[in-house]
């Protein structure tokens, strides 16, 4: 088959069987035995021992959206405060805390974990694995995220939240200028939560590289899986930078190191370099998996194979590579040599090429296909409308002289909301509508979905488009109010109005989700006629994902199977222990069988020990050794070598 495969006919989901006959495939007895082996324990105590990727992935997604709602409400509070000049609804103290928590939470507690959650839930299904490579580490990462995120939000409830901005520029974040525990909470909790991102990254990399279904060589991996792989590598190399930076800041505040104290040889710009060396790849860490989501939806709803598979892999890899060479464009105004800045001007505008390639590959895929405009596809169209605008302003701010005007103004606020909301939240909403039937076995209401998508799209543009103009009119970012007479009032009022419309749109989806969990139509195995393996299991997925692990012979196994009228599978995996195939890195030839561990409470205990150490670090450096050895002790129990399976 050619790389394009234009000839392949479209797929009508109405022709899909409602179930692929999972029980019939192996017989009732064997089916029940396998499902018992893979079942997650129920009950309150059982909850703390679950390790299945579908359970953990869902938890990541749900928790991330809870944080999304909370930070969204903070955003609304800020918009209310800014609705008119010299408004006094929020004090500057409150506003600065809210602003800091909104930014930090949207980035660290919502965007990354939500993307990881989708990746953890979908990627193993897509590669045809029965679970992830390190189920217990997965659970550990979740508890770390839950505890760290909750502690972070708790600080806002207690009125001691960080207030030096999500970027925590020193010297403002130093002990001298930010007293109290706010910034300490930021440094410790963020480092802690990064831990969860890093474990998820390692986990995803290994799962994708080693646990792919037999036959899924690298050139047959779905684009979404490629995107997750690139995202994970980016996390691997970007996060250490911010961990080092926040560790430096933590130590400056806790034990008087002098990293950022100018008088003693420290450098405030060191912080900015380290922070943005992480911070810029960060936005692409959020964007890249979203591009994968968009590709999945575009392929499914145009009903034909992707145009330019290799080009998309190249674009995603290229974005990953280029994103590490842009960080100085956040520092154009710090007085760096012009020649140095010119390198980053070039690199920043370079990102237009891979982005352009992707957009046009999608257009070529859609072109002339029998496109079905169901809600997931509508979210993707909204993504196009918003993200392209954000990308264009992104190319503008790459220009040094232009950026020196708009940097730290509302223009940039508009730009990055276009990129992040357009590039991450819209695809994420599409992902919810797309995979909700798979995850819950229920369809979401199309009507509510269309209403939600339209409201969000309109509300979003009313909120954020005026900010472009505000920024050019001289309104700086991170201000809790503005004096009258500068001509900013109308636009701000309009933006506030839009923000409520935006919130209403998201509320519709929330309502849709809650309602459909009970009353939604029952979903078949492959409701949209998708081509990838996650649709080969039941909806919701079986405990073991695949009663027989699939074998893959092209990029779109589901469509192949439909044509051939039969599936290709692995046989011979044990029924009474958790086994999954390990395949070779490149061509996914069967190599060995991995026996996965079952439910255990140790990840939870370990995460509690780690949080004890990290939260203690807010107050005293002695919690470092205490936490270190506490975690070590729990790890010994965790890793205590046991026979890979219980002897009969």
């Amino acid at each position, binding site marked *: 088959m050619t790389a394009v495969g234009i000839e392949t006919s479209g797929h009508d989901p109405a022709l899909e*069987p409602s179930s692929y006959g999972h029980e019939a495939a192996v017989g009732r007895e064997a089916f029940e035995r396998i499902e018992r082996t893979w079942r997650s324990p129920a009950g309150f105590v059982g909850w703390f021992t679950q390790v299945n990727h579908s359970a953990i992935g869902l938890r990541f997604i749900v928790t991330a959206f809870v944080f999304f709602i909370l930070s969204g409400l903070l955003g609304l509070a800020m918009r209310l405060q800014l609705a008119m000049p010299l408004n006094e609804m929020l004090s500057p103290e409150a506003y600065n805390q809210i602003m800091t928590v909104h930014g930090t939470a949207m980035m660290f507690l919502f965007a990354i974990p939500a993307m990881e959650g989708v990746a953890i839930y979908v990627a193993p299904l897509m590669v045809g694995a029965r679970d992830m*490579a*390190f189920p217990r*580490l997965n659970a550990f990462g979740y508890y770390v995220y839950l505890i760290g995120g909750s502690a972070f939000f708790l600080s806002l409830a207690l009125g001691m939240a960080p207030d030096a901005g999500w970027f925590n520029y020193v010297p403002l974040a130093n002990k001298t200028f930010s007293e109290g525990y706010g910034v300490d909470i930021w440094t410790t909790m963020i480092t802690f939560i990064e831990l969860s991102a*890093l474990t998820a*990254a*390692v986990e995803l*990399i290994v*799962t994708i*590289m*080693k*646990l792919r279904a*037999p*036959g899924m060589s690298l050139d047959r991996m779905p684009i979404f899986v490629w995107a997750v792989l690139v995202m994970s590598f980016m996390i*691997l*190399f970007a*996060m*250490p*930078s911010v*961990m*080092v930076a926040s560790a*430096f800041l933590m*130590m400056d505040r806790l*034990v*008087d*190191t*002098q*990293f950022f104290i100018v008088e*003693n*040889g*420290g*450098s405030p*710009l*060191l912080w900015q*370099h*380290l922070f943005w060396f992480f911070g810029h790849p960060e936005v692409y860490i959020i964007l890249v998996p979203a591009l994968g989501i968009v590709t999945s939806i575009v392929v499914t709803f145009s009903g034909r194979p992707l145009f330019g598979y290799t080009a998309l892999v190249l674009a995603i890899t290229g974005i990953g590579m280029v994103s590490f060479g842009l960080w100085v464009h956040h520092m154009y105004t710090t007085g760096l040599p012009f020649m140095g800045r010119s390198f980053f001007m070039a690199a920043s505008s370079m990102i237009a090429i891979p982005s352009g390639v992707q957009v046009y590959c999608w257009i070529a895929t859609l072109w002339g296909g029998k496109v079905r405009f169901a809600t997931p596809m509508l979210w993707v169209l909204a993504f196009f409308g918003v993200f392209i605008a954000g990308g264009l302003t992104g190319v503008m701010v790459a220009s040094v002289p232009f950026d020196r005007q708009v940097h730290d103004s509302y223009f940039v606020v508009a730009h990055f909301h276009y990129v992040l909301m357009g590039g991450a939240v819209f695809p994420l909403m599409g992902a919810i509508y797309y995979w909700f039937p798979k995850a819950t076995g229920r369809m979401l209401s199309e009507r509510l979905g269309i209403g939600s998508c339209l409201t969000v799209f309109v509300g979003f543009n009313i909120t954020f488009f005026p900010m472009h103009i505000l920024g050019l009119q001289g309104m700086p970012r991170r201000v809790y109010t503005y004096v009258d007479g500068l001509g900013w009032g109308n636009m701000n009022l309009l933006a506030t109005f839009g923000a409520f419309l935006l919130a209403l749109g998201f509320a519709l989806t929330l309502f849709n989700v809650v309602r459909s969990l009970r009353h939604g139509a029952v979903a078949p195995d492959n409701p949209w006629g998708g081509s990838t393996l996650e649709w080969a299991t039941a909806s919701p997925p079986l405990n073991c994902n695949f009663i027989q692990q699939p074998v893959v012979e092209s990029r779109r196994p589901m469509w192949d*199977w439909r044509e051939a*009228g*039969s*599936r*290709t*599978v*692995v*046989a*011979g*995996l044990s029924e009474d222990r958790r*086994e999954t*195939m*390990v395949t070779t890195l490149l061509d996914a030839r*069967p*190599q*060995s*069988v*991995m*026996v996965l561990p079952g439910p255990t409470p140790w990840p939870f205990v370990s995460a509690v020990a780690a949080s004890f150490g990290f939260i203690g670090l807010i107050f005293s450096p002695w919690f470092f050794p205490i936490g*270190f050895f506490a975690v070590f002790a729990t790890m*010994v129990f965790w890793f205590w*070598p046991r*026979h*890979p399976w219980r002897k009969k």
Partner: protein
Amino acid sequence: MKARVLVDASDIDRFAPHTHPLWWGILGAVAIEAAVVATLLTSYFYLAAQNPAWPPEGVAPPDLFWPTVVLVLLPLSSFTMWWAGKGSDRGDQRQLSIGVTASVTLAVLALVARSFQIAEFDASWNDHAYGSILWVITGFHYTHVVSAVSGTAVVAVLAWRGYFTPERQLGVVVDTVYWYFVAGVFLPIYLVLYIAPRLL
């Protein structure tokens, strides 16, 4: 839908320590740690470039004797670790136990040497950015040796109790990879912290 069996997994190896995903996982952890070390060393040079004198006036670069001792001890311990792994592959419990114990002993000696060297530092962490970065890089590596030693000590105890069968030697394999990293990463640290201030 009919199923066509293309792969029969019943005869495939269930114990494959050297291709086990955990081996790749540890490589991932090593990549993260390596990125941290690279960031720390870059920060060191950045701070050096921001200061007119590095180390600052009146501060001597750290003494070379103890770090060089560590530089000898750590690779030596890696060698014994490798030897222990060889034994484990052959199912030789005794060689495994002796090798692992020797590694732990050598690393503990390295820790002692490292402690002497830290006591000799001319700068405190709270005097100057130089002292801060010196202490942090040293502390980072020290902590890693401590964690490697603690982990390997558990492996040693288990080895003497005959816990590792050829099927269960995954722990040894993984511990070895991590050990190589902890030992190997001292070389760039040594070059930057002890040699660079003398050359620059």
